[in-house]
């Protein structure tokens, strides 16, 4: 394989770094995780001229090399470790022409590491509107680099950037500013101890320990004498360093940038006046939320119905095309419905991420954070918890990951712990089928049906539980954490279609393959457990049933045999075993099976009941009718009556039934402690609430 040029894309958030990445790599990109942590790793290949290729790594957005979060730490770990296989041949620092001053701070730090660096000034299409003009040759000289003026929106300047990447070897490696002048004695000693190292690199290694955490992989062994005595002393020095850098930047910009204030138009000011308004701001936000819910529940129902029918058809077609046997049963009753259970969520998840990425790309999301911060803080949450809580209505997994930009550990932890209460799309199928069974299909007033009101109530219940639990956690948790909150309010932009689409596809793929694997595995295991039994009763079901039910024949006999088999299969015994525990909630052993299997993932419930009740029948409608006709063995009443139905709905509203979420919480909180607490607290609450509801209603 020909040598690839290794490129790291670095930049502040909101500089259009990802747009530049998308332009360089096209769809030729893949998203993974950094080993051991859940920070997204985006990489792609960019074709340069004459068969030369560049491997582009899109590093997480960071404001500086002084990390304060896991995402930012990734950048430092890479840039300090020359042995890392991704260590860049050339760093491309992306900046926004409107925020050059702030964006250049990071650039001066990267230059100090003596890595060949290209400066991209992005959003060049906005220069005219903001009255900005640049003296590029002057800036290149002062900043000791090459500058590519790019407009990712208009797709301009990318070819020049590619050429610069290709001839990276000619880029100057030296720093552009000497920022470490505030403690001459100290730095002189440091340099003498490590004559071959860049001074800034040494300084970074020393300071990161205090900043965020110790740098993992670096070959330097710096003696403890060089440690800064106290944290406040360090911060004082870092302030001096920052001031030094800004002095340099201000000087450079004075020479190379002119801004004609009169030419600038105040789009931001005008939009902010409405969107962050004390009344209209909230009004618009709730309007947008309503629109999102409408899309998720109404619009996505059409593709979902299609998917549902397609999989039912596929299952039937396979059954009739292949010879009967246990292996074909596994495919038609285990794997295909299992796959269908995953694919059916795609429309909802895609719609949710479509809206979220439009809101983020446009810059509106920061305004929501601004508006909601005060209210959320009352409950120990942050304004930044709004995004995870809204995302949670699709799936708790991306929602938990979306908490990363919350600075205060306590607020972040509380958000992670309560997010699974919000009604995720996996609960929806359970809700829909139970509601259809136990809530009358009648209208109250003109428009609202009891069924849709119940669904809406369950959503409010989810949010209520999340906020309530946050309030309790805020009182109970004794975590000291610096509660600072800084959020950038980026300028408004029309979202780029390509960025939005790539984001939607990526997030949907992550769901399908992440959660999908588990759901598929569970449905296969379930099928196996339901198809084999521990003793003779299972194998001899046919003889036993024929002997005891001599009056039955044909299909009725078939059904009797199948349900006898189920009762004496492995899963049947497991269900019987849990029955004493779930009986006070109004459930029988079959629902018990559903609940056991739901602890892996909620959406498995409907699939399990379908497997249990579908035996002998093919159509969707019959499953519902069968569930409705199911009579409790002991009480003689329908199994799915009003009381047990409500109890089941409440159980699913509160219980922690998702292994993937627990796994992600474990990774994000660095241990099993919090996911374990989450599991027992939520499921315990679910049990108690469902118990009370059933005992009152029955």
């Amino acid at each position: 394989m020909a040598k690839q040029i290794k490129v790291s894309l670095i930049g502040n958030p909101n500089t259009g770094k990802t747009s530049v990445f998308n332009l360089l790599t096209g769809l030729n990109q893949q998203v993974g995780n950094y080993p051991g942590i859940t920070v997204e790793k985006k990489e792609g290949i960019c074709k340069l001229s004459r068969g030369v290729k560049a491997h582009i790594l899109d590093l997480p957005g960071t404001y500086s090399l002084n990390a304060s979060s896991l995402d930012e730490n990734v950048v430092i770990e890479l840039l300090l470790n020359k042995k890392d296989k991704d260590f860049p041949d050339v760093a491309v620092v992306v900046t926004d022409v409107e925020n050059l001053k702030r964006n250049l701070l990071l650039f001066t730090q990267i230059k100090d590491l003596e890595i060949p660096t290209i400066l991209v000034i992005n959003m060049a299409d906005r220069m005219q509107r903001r009255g900005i003009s640049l003296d590029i040759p002057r800036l290149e000289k002062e900043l000791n680099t090459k500058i590519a003026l790019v407009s990712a929106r208009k797709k301009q300047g990318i070819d020049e950037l590619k050429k610069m990447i290709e001839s990276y070897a000619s880029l100057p490696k030296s720093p552009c500013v000497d920022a470490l002048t505030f403690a001459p004695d100290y730095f002189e000693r440091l340099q003498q101890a490590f004559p071959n190292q860049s001074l800034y690199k040494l300084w970074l290694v020393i300071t990161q320990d205090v900043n965020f955490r110790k740098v993992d992989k670096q070959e330097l062994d710096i003696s403890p004498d060089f440690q800064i005595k106290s944290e406040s002393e360090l911060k004082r020095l870092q302030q001096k360093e920052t001031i030094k850098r800004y002095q340099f930047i201000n000087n450079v910009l004075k020479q190379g940038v002119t801004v004609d204030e009169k030419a600038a138009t105040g789009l931001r000011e005008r939009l902010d006046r409405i969107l962050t308004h004390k009344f209209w701001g909230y009004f618009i936000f709730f309007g947008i939320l309503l629109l999102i819910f409408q899309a998720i529940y109404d619009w996505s129902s059409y593709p979902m119905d299609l998917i549902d029918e397609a999989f039912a058809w596929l299952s039937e077609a396979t059954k009739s095309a292949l010879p009967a046997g246990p292996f074909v049963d596994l495919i038609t009753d285990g794997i295909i419905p299992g796959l269908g259970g995953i694919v059916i969520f795609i429309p909802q998840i895609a719609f949710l991420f479509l809206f979220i990425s439009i809101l983020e790309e446009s810059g509106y999301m920061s305004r929501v954070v601004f508006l909601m911060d005060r209210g959320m803080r009352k409950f120990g949450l942050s304004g930044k918890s709004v995004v995870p809580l809204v995302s949670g209505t699709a799936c708790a997994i991306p929602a938990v990951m979306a908490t990363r930009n919350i600075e205060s550990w306590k607020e972040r932890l509380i958000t992670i712990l309560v997010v699974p209460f919000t009604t995720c799309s996996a609960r929806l199928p359970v809700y829909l089928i139970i509601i259809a069974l136990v809530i009358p299909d009648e209208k109250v007033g003109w428009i609202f049906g009891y069924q849709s009101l119940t669904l809406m109530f369950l959503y409010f219940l989810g949010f209520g539980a999340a906020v309530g639990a946050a309030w309790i956690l805020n009182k109970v948790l004794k975590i000291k954490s610096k509660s600072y909150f800084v959020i950038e309010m980026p300028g408004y932009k029309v979202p780029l279609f390509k960025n939005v689409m790539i984001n939607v596809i990526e997030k949907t793929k992550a769901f399908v393959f992440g959660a999908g694997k588990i759901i598929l595995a569970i449905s296969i295991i379930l099928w196996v457990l339901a198809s084999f039994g521990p003793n003779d009763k299972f194998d001899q079901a046919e003889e036993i049933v024929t002997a005891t039910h001599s009056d039955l024949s044909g299909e009725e006999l078939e059904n009797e045999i199948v349900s006898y088999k189920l009762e004496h299969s492995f899963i049947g015994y497991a269900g019987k075993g849990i029955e004493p525990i779930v009986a006070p909630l109004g459930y029988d052993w079959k629902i018990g099976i559903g609940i056991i299997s739901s602890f892996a993932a909620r959406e498995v419930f409907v699939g399990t009941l379908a497997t249990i009740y579908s035996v002998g029948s093919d159509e969707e409608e019959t499953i519902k009718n069968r569930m409705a006709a199911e009579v409790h063995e002991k009480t003689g009443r329908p199994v799915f009556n009003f009381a047990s139905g409500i109890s089941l709905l409440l159980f699913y509203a509160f219980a922690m039934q998702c292994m993937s979420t627990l796994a992600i919480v474990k990774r994000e909180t660095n241990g099993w402690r919090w996911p374990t607490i989450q599991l027992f607290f939520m499921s315990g609450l679910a049990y108690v609430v469902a118990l009370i509801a059933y005992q009152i209603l029955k």
Partner: protein
Amino acid sequence: MKTTIAHLKKGQRALIKEIPTDVIPLKLLEMGCLPGNEVQLLQTAPFSCPMYLNINGSHLAIRREVAAEIEVQIL
């Protein structure tokens, strides 16, 4: 009593005088919140928190208690 960002009225500009580095996150400094720089209050959420500021050309929002630590001189 010292004047801080928390005392600013909407639209008012001020110069940052003193920053207690112990209580102010480094990130805020790096975003341009440094002595000598200009700050303008653009908007506040209900109950004046958080505060939406333009600091040295950067648009950002911070909570009131942090704003109350940053000493300024109103222009």
